[in-house]
């Protein structure tokens, strides 16, 4: 309620073309030369001080990638990416693995402060009850610059660190799980990521542990002409629970930047992983110039019986989004959930959705997708629900709602439903609506101006999904949605 008013004020205070996080951090970077070849991969691997097996894994991925074609089935349109014209590694120069926060470049701390992500633990601690604390891993271009609350988490046995550190410190875990959910040759971008991934977060929750605080990673792409290829791996052992948040922003630049991440989640028996994303990469300007190409592979494996994985995403940024967080429901009675708000405005193109692959018995999944299109954007929901022969009593419920603002945008729904077991029950509901003139007039007749009326109606439209977000993120997400839609009426 208060958030709505706050958003309106915020919306009013900014111009149409202004992306709040568009500033550039002036920091000297170490860049790998442009282009992609074995030497670059060796360079990245050496920078990370990686063991031999990791290098070989990357090289193998690279060999496979060279034989693969860029996928073209998505409803997105962009000029061909010149993969030779990108830097595959960029790191702040002063940043050779700081031991503590005191060693982190003040310029970087300032950057995250501006983004509203305090990295100083003292600051985070000020006035916040322990159960509401959030541990943060901050990834800047290709490296993790800081991870907070590591010690406190270690007391509970939780490992939360940059994946580059995990490769060195916990090779047995990484070797066991890396690529076990998203195989190296899964798809063009995932394979590219496997070859050149530079950093990301690693989370390990031991058996029976309920992670004592929210974990989060904050991704920032700063350097121009770079690709960010982060890799996240989360493992929840038997009976454990973790809630993980991910946020992303990038400076406002004229040229497009590439972001091709891979996220793998593994939930063992009785474990639960809740993964929330608020994606706010630079969407390009009002002419459609610049913006992030967001080609992401996210997949969770409900490996054990009674396990549960829930994806919640609020997608407001990126010039192009190509993303389908999925669940493989392998364990009997496992549960997969996908809650999504995807907003496109201006020239943005979104092709996003999920896959629910039912393999085990009595598995159930739920998909709630809310697409909001404005400007001249295109917004596609693409979702697959399938039941394997052995997936007895598989259940899915899909609700897919689109809201159009204005008459120059498009909303599309592409469901793929496949059942090889007669006992499976899949339900799919889809609606497309416009904010009606009657609704606008009604709200305005009660004193809301045009923008406040749109904000209120949209907030109502996305309510089911917002409710799934952790409290502090819900408020943020609500603000973000309204800012993204600012200038979409009148």
């Amino acid at each position: 309620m208060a958030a709505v008013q706050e958003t309106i004020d915020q919306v009013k205070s900014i111009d149409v073309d202004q992306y709040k996080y568009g500033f550039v951090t002036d920091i000297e970077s170490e860049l790998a030369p442009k282009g992609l070849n074995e030497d670059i991969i060796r360079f990245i691997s050496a920078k990370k001080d990686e063991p031999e097996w990791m290098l070989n894994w990357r090289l193998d991925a690279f060999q496979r990638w060279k034989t693969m074609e860029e996928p073209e089935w998505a409803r997105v349109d962009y000029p061909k990416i010149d993969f030779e014209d990108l830097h595959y590694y960029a790191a702040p120069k002063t940043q050779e693995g700081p031991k503590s926060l005191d060693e982190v470049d003040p310029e970087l701390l300032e950057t995250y402060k501006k983004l509203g992500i305090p990295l100083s633990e003292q600051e985070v601690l000020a006035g916040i009850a322990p159960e509401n604390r959030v541990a943060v891993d901050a990834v800047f271009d290709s490296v993790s610059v800081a991870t907070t609350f590591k010690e406190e988490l270690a007391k509970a046995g939780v490992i939360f660190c940059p994946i580059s550190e995990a490769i060195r410190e916990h090779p047995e875990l990484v070797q066991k799980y890396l690529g076990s959910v998203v195989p190296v040759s899964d798809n063009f971008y995932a394979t590219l990521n496997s070859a050149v991934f530079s950093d990301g977060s690693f989370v390990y929750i031991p058996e029976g542990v309920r992670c004592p605080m929210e974990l989060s990673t904050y991704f920032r792409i700063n350097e121009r002409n770079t690709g960010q290829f982060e890799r996240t791996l989360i493992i929840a052992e038997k009976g454990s629970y973790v809630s993980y948040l991910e946020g992303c922003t990038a400076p406002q630049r004229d040229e497009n930047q590439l972001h091709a991440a891979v996220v793998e989640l593994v939930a063992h028996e009785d474990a639960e992983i809740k993964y929330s994303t608020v994606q706010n990469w630079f969407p390009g300007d009002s002419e459609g110039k610049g913006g992030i190409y967001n080609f992401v592979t996210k997949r969770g494996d409900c490996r054990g019986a009674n396990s549960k994985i829930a994806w919640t995403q609020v997608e407001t940024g990126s010039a192009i989004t190509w993303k389908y967080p999925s669940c493989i429901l392998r364990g009997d009675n496992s549960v997969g959930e996908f809650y999504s708000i995807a907003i496109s405005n201006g020239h943005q193109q979104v092709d996003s959705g999920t896959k629910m692959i039912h393999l085990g018995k009595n598995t159930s999944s739920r998909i709630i997708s809310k697409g909001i299109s404005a400007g001249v954007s295109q917004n596609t929901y693409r979702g697959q629900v399938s039941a394997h022969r052995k997936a007895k009593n598989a259940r899915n419920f899909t609700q897919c709602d689109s809201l159009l603002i204005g008459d120059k945008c498009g909303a599309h729904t592409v469901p793929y439903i496949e059942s090889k077991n007669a006992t499976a029950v899949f339900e799919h509901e889809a609606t497309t609506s416009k904010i009606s003139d009657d609704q606008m007039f009604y709200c305005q007749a009660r004193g809301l101006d045009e923008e406040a009326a749109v904000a209120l109606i949209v907030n109502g439209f996305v309510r089911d999904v917002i409710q799934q977000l952790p409290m502090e993120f819900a408020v943020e997400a609500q603000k973000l949605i309204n800012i993204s839609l600012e200038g979409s009426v009148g």
Partner: protein
Amino acid sequence: MLEIKNLHAEVEGNKILRGIDLTVKPGEIHAIMGPNGSGKSTLSYILAGKEDYEITEGSITYNGEDMLELGADERAAAGMFLAFQYPIEIPGVATMTFLKTALNAQRAARGEEELSTPDFMKLVREKAADLKVTPEMLRRPLNVGFSGGEKKRAEILQMALLEPTLCILDETDSGLDIDALRIVSEGVNKLRSPERGMIVITHYQRLLDHIVPDVVHVLSKGKIVKTGGKELALELEANGYADYVGEEA
């Protein structure tokens, strides 16, 4: 004070209002009656600022301000309120949230401070109880799945909360059973005050038994054809509109 002078309006070339003159002073209740299609609802929409109509002639001023220059939200902030004949559904927005957003938007537009949540809640609870609006109803999305009576009660609740200086009630009695009509009318009567003017649009006399008007107008084919006291409504009830709508009817 509301002053409508020689108001002409049309939609897609069809003339709907053909020269309306109406003055409503603070404290007065004016009833506007008339057959279907006479332009009653159009008049209420135009007063509230709906943009679908072209005003070809005439003026609307309220407290000296030219209303035709203002948007619907600005008119609301200036103290006008339209209780809709068919209230609109706002899915996902709890009634309570809607009430608070609307109240604070108007307060902000008038340069007043936002009401604190506890003060707001207290206010709503008081007003809601009068109209038999339950806390459960306040949690539900506004007008979604509301019965006819609930919708109208919610409209009057908004009116009570926003405390407008000019209330326009568009067929508030339609779709109400006797009990609901009584509750709604009591809610409206509670808002009668020397500072507040009202325009009550209705087909039927029965609403005017509960909300007794000072002046009754008969609207026909976009014009006010007869103005009288409250007894005019009784006469209409007995004889119908035939005397006033001309030979064509």
